[in-house]
């Protein structure tokens, strides 16, 4: 019965290529990622969000809040930029959940699941395209930062390490976001589920203000636990040479980098396999 459906030459060749095909994550992820990026480019409202929101945040914190946040021995914009970039990337990872749920609702996920493609590629393609969009935000923020007196004062190698940590942070939070999307299944739910935990997580941190003045429990969380703080501190140390000292504690850059790596790897070790497992179990 193999060739019956293919009366044309191209049809026979297609049947030949497809028979027993099993896509790999390497082959299929770029196909999915390109599809996702095309979608974004054709929805100008998303592109505007990706560009405008980071610019707005930088300017608001630089010129409104920043004027009231004195950091001893430090220009606030130097303190702010590495942290706000981390915060924007973490927020940007919420798009992974929204994208996943929109695809589930739209029936594309069913189409993917009925194809002999790699299931992991649906997740990987999503995470990679979201990373690409987030990196556009990052570039925009660095450019805007430079316009408002932010300067990277460290070596290229250190700045690149900061970039790697920020990329790792984005991938890690995207994988959490993918699990949320697969769990809630509805785009609206994904949207609100994202903001409920991302706001406290990014604000109870060293992103916008030094942690020394926070009440003890919040301070403990912000200094010792929160991965967003660790990545912010590491990025700060690696870009503006900011070894930030509060009244009682100084951030140790090596420790910040190591804790960042531990968190990023830890999150991905749990959430990447979990998201793939949940995807395979979709019905």
């Amino acid at each position: 019965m193999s060739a019956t459906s293919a009366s044309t030459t191209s049809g026979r060749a297609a049947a030949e290529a497809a028979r027993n095909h099993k896509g790999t994550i390497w082959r299929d992820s770029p196909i999915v990622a390109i599809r996702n990026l095309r979608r974004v480019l054709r929805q100008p409202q998303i592109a505007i969000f990706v560009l405008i929101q980071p610019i707005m945040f930088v300017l608001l914190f630089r010129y409104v809040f920043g004027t009231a946040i004195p950091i001893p021995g430090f220009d606030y914009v130097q303190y702010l930029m590495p942290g706000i970039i981390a915060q924007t990337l973490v927020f940007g990872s919420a798009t992974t959940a929204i994208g996943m749920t929109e695809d589930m609702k739209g029936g594309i996920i069913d189409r993917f699941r009925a194809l002999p493609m790699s299931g992991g590629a649906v997740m990987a393609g999503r995470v990679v395209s979201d990373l690409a969009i987030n990196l556009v935000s990052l570039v925009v923020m660095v450019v805007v930062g430079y316009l408002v007196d932010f300067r990277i004062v460290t070596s290229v190698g250190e700045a690149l390490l900061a970039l790697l940590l920020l990329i790792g942070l984005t991938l890690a939070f995207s994988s959490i976001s993918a699990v949320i999307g697969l769990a809630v299944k509805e785009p609206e739910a994904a949207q609100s589920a994202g903001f409920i935990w991302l706001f406290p997580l990014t604000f109870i941190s060293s992103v916008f203000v030094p942690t020394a003045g926070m009440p003890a429990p919040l301070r403990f969380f912000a200094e010792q636990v929160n991965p967003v703080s660790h990545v912010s501190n590491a990025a700060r140390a690696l870009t503006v040479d900011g070894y930030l000292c509060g009244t009682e504690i100084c951030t140790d850059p090596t420790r910040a980098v190591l804790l960042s790596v531990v968190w990023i790897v830890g999150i991905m070790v749990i959430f990447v396999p979990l998201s793939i497992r949940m995807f395979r179990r979709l019905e």
Partner: protein
Amino acid sequence: MSAPAIEATGLVKHYGETVALGGLDLEVPVGTVLGMLGPNGAGKTTAVRILTTLLRPDAGRATVAGFDVAEDADRVRSRIGLTGQYAAVDEHLTGHENVTMVGRLSGLGKAQARARADELLDRFGLADAAHRATKGYSGGMRRRLDLAASLVASPDIVFLDEPTTGLDPASRLGLWEVIREVVALGTTVLLTTQYLEEADSLADEILVIDQGREIALGTATKLKADVGGETVAVELVDTSRLEDARAALVGVAGGEVWVDERQGRLSFPAHGDAGRLAATVRALDGAGIAVADLSLRRPSLDDVFLNLTGRAASEAAADAATPTEASVA
């Protein structure tokens, strides 16, 4: 005789208390079209989702193209095409991009996938719209695109889950033409529909299901014969002469002649004898009664459903419209 393209035995699927499938068997020989007919909530979509590896059954097993859908899902996926109930195309991509993407993910090379997309879009009358985003497509165009995407890798077996639901009559006829082309290529098709005339028009064999179970299986002709044979139906130009016509036709009918005064129509069983049509014309002509319309009427598949379940297809759909079933669909 070769193995069937699709074979399922004892498929069971529950959603909580709701029984979506209550032990369904089916068999589709290679190169044939099975029409799975039933109202909303009868379990058609659940069956298709199991056969296309999207859903695991609670019990029973199924093979598609000779491979077990649970054990060998990837081999099944490399041999099937699926067209969903609502068209699963990406509305922000162009038609061409949609088909090419499915081709790539089915294992085709880049140039090959693009060439196939060109060919299929052309064949399905979408060449002009190929490079426009599909959100601007009409419902009929989307269904045709969905079908083109399903066919890009020339699958042996195609599942069409309610391909024309929600389409206007002209688009429906257009899609039927496209489906007939697919069938003519020798593709095995499993088609679900709630439109009785759709199954009649496209399927070799019809499986009527209700509440997750088979209630009848056979060709459209056989199902209709089960309900009762053909009738000769006569409409008069002058409906005041119904009684005269009845008297004139008693001899031809060889029994009772029914008179429907509201429709101005007479009918009687043909008893498989098409010669009665000619006799009817002669008898009425002899009596000087003008005929507006004369036909040999077959029972519709609506009659079949009514006969099998004691309720019309629309009532069955209303019964099945529980919240659970709605969310499953």
